[in-house]
């Protein structure tokens, strides 16, 4: 206190004056900086010849494959920003809304992309889907997934993958079991493995609680069919309807078969017990191959979740990945050029070969004969299915996924409260559909 009063009592010393001047200078400099960033931010990036590729590629090998692709790009200079998926998901709205949005962003096809398009945040990429555009020859299913409510294409799919029950051939051989072909056989297999002291199923629900939706989706597809599943996720049915209760009853029967640590694992951790032959099967996307040691990848095989109700058409989940471009970016042409490059047959081929993950190409011209037998089998699976869905969040929204995460992880922990959990889920879902 006494020190402070002295300042006002005596004349400023020279040192104080200089320090004061410096602070003032710094303040005006700061003000100048603020001025340039607000005014010049757009201007700086408007110089064509630079594009930003914001992506959520997280696993090491796919990331390296993408980096290699970008490095070989002959067009504009590309800034590659890789952000962890969960973070990316949380920030995506902000990326797209910002006045100086990244030109190209990786994300998912379907209702998630469509909801951004409805808000006018995505660039119309229809030119790539017409004439001799890079996507012109893609399948109608992919075109449908990439089209918004107004009929414009707003997405460029570059790869997709399938979900199935993965297992190790050598382990099944060791345990003397075979892949099941019916739902009863599947249960018998689980019983058999449990009896041998092996956890029949694994899952990773800790920081990836959405993994609980994998079984929910498949059981719903097998019990009620793809049509009902889509309608349920669009809010046309309630989560406490008897149809969903029937699905949960099937889910309940599986609970004793899960690895006891499933709630503590992440999706990635959950592959470890399978690699160590402590756990047998994992219902997961084909990206799981990159979670296994390299020398085990050829040992992996899969079977589709067996039919439960043979009156519904067989359906598989095949999430489609790719890129969209922000409407708020400065370099629209640069974005389209980069998208054309990333979606080209050659780029897809290179990416699939290098990423080590079992991705399928979206371009019909990619030569798949050199791909691994596992991937060949995946292509066949999807070619022979009657219906294709993506995944819970991609067929609905991230907000609805959050309600599923809460409901399903709680159900797996306290299955006896199923009734009240479904009621809570429906209430939460109504909140999502209302907002």
């Amino acid at each position, binding site marked *: 206190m006494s020190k402070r*009063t002295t300042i006002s*009592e005596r004349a*400023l010393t020279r040192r104080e004056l200089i320090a004061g001047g410096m602070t003032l200078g710094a303040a005006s400099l700061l003000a100048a900086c603020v001025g340039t960033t607000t005014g010049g931010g757009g201007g700086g990036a408007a110089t064509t010849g630079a594009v930003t590729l914001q992506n959520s590629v997280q696993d090491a090998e796919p990331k390296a494959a993408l980096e290699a692709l970008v490095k070989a790009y002959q067009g504009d200079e590309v800034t590659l920003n890789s952000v962890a998926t969960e973070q990316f998901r949380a920030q995506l*709205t902000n990326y797209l809304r910002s006045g100086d949005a990244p030109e190209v962003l990786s994300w998912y096809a379907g209702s998630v992309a469509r909801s951004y398009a409805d808000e006018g945040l995505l660039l119309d990429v229809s030119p790539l889907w017409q004439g001799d555009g890079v996507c012109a020859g893609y399948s109608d299913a992919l075109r449908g997934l990439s089209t918004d409510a107004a009929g414009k294409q707003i997405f460029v799919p570059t790869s997709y993958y399938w979900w199935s029950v993965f297992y190790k051939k050598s382990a099944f051989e060791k345990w003397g079991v075979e892949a099941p072909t019916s739902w009863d056989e599947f249960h018998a297999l689980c019983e058999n493995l449990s009896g041998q002291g092996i956890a029949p199923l694994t899952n990773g629900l800790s920081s990836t609680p959405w993994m609980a939706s994998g079984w929910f989706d498949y059981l719903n597809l097998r019990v009620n069919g793809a049509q009902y599943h889509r309608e349920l996720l669009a809010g046309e049915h309630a989560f406490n309807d008897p149809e969903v209760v029937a699905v949960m009853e099937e889910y309940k029967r599986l609970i004793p078969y899960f690895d006891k*640590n499933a709630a503590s694992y992440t999706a990635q951790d959950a592959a470890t017990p399978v690699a160590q032959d402590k756990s047998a099967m994992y219902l997961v996307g084909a990206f799981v191959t990159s979670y296994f040691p390299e020398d085990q990848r050829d040992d992996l095989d899969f079977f589709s979740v067996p039919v439960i109700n043979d009156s519904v058409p067989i359906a598989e989940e095949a999430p489609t990945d790719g890129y969209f471009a922000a409407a708020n970016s400065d370099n629209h042409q640069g974005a389209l050029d980069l998208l054309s490059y990333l979606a080209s047959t050659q780029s897809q081929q290179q990416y699939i070969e290098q990423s080590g993950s079992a991705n399928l190409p979206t371009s019909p011209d990619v030569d798949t004969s050199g791909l691994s037998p596992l991937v060949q089998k995946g292509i066949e699976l999807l070619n022979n299915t009657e219906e294709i869905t993506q995944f819970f969040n991609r067929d609905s929204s*991230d907000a609805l996924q959050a309600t599923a*995460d*809460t*409901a399903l992880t709680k159900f797996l922990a306290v299955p006896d409260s199923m009734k009240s959990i479904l009621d809570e889920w429906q209430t939460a879902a109504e909140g999502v559909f209302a*907002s």
Partner: protein
Amino acid sequence: MSAQTSAPRRRSGLARVPLLVWVFLLVPFAIELFWVFWPAANSFSLSLTRWDGITPAEPIGLQNFRDLAADPIFLTALRNNVIWVFGFGGLSVVGGLVLAVTLNKPGPLVGLYRSAIYLPMVVSLAVSGLFWRVMYAPDGPINGTLGLLGLESLERQWLADPAVALGAVLIAAVWRQVGYIMVLYLAGLKGTDPTLEEAAAVDGASAWQRFWRIVMPQLRGVNTVVFAVTVIDSLRTFDIVWAMTRGGPYNETQLLSTYMFQQAFTTGNLGYASAIAVVIFALAIGFIITYLARQARTED
């Protein structure tokens, strides 16, 4: 102490404050106003709207607050926050004080102990969270140690079992905070007058009496700081919970801050999230004002 003598001088001094000093005060104040208070005030008005961050905000009055009152996740988060304020605050203050008193005495390796206890503070909360996630892993060191000691019955899915998850995160947070509180109290203890304690000892006061009646009253200033720091830290706790459990399993470890983040940035309900922010603000201000008012009363 000097308040009485300097008060009249200050009043006359106000007119004589040179322009430069005013500039020093006003420029940062203007910046603070624009970058801190204005956005903060905005969250109050946002809390009365429904806003997804893209389309224009739609005013809905107090609906967000009514929804909060009926939202089971919010109520869990509120309950957890109360547990957190008392658990985190209580354990770190008691632990910090005990450590400070113990390590205030000269002894072998005291410096080493002090640095070791303070060390976790150097690491960011997110990193502490990752470290503790490894500790708590199903086959991690904690379950491993329990197994070695023959206490298999105590092994848990520490972060996945709602009965223990919040406590498990709490311990990790206290582990980090306790060193900080210890340093604050060590500084306070250095400022106490040892002769008073000696005099009390000569008069036959026990160690316990000396601590409560002689040392503690002298730590009043530090206590105020520790209280404010602890309440604010516990209400703004976010990173360690996010890094360890993300509010899971099924929202059982959700705090107000993590739920606010989830609502704002995962599900895009910025209006609703702002309403949660207002509740956090009200709680923090409520705690601090009550405490300061009580302090002022006891000082009178």
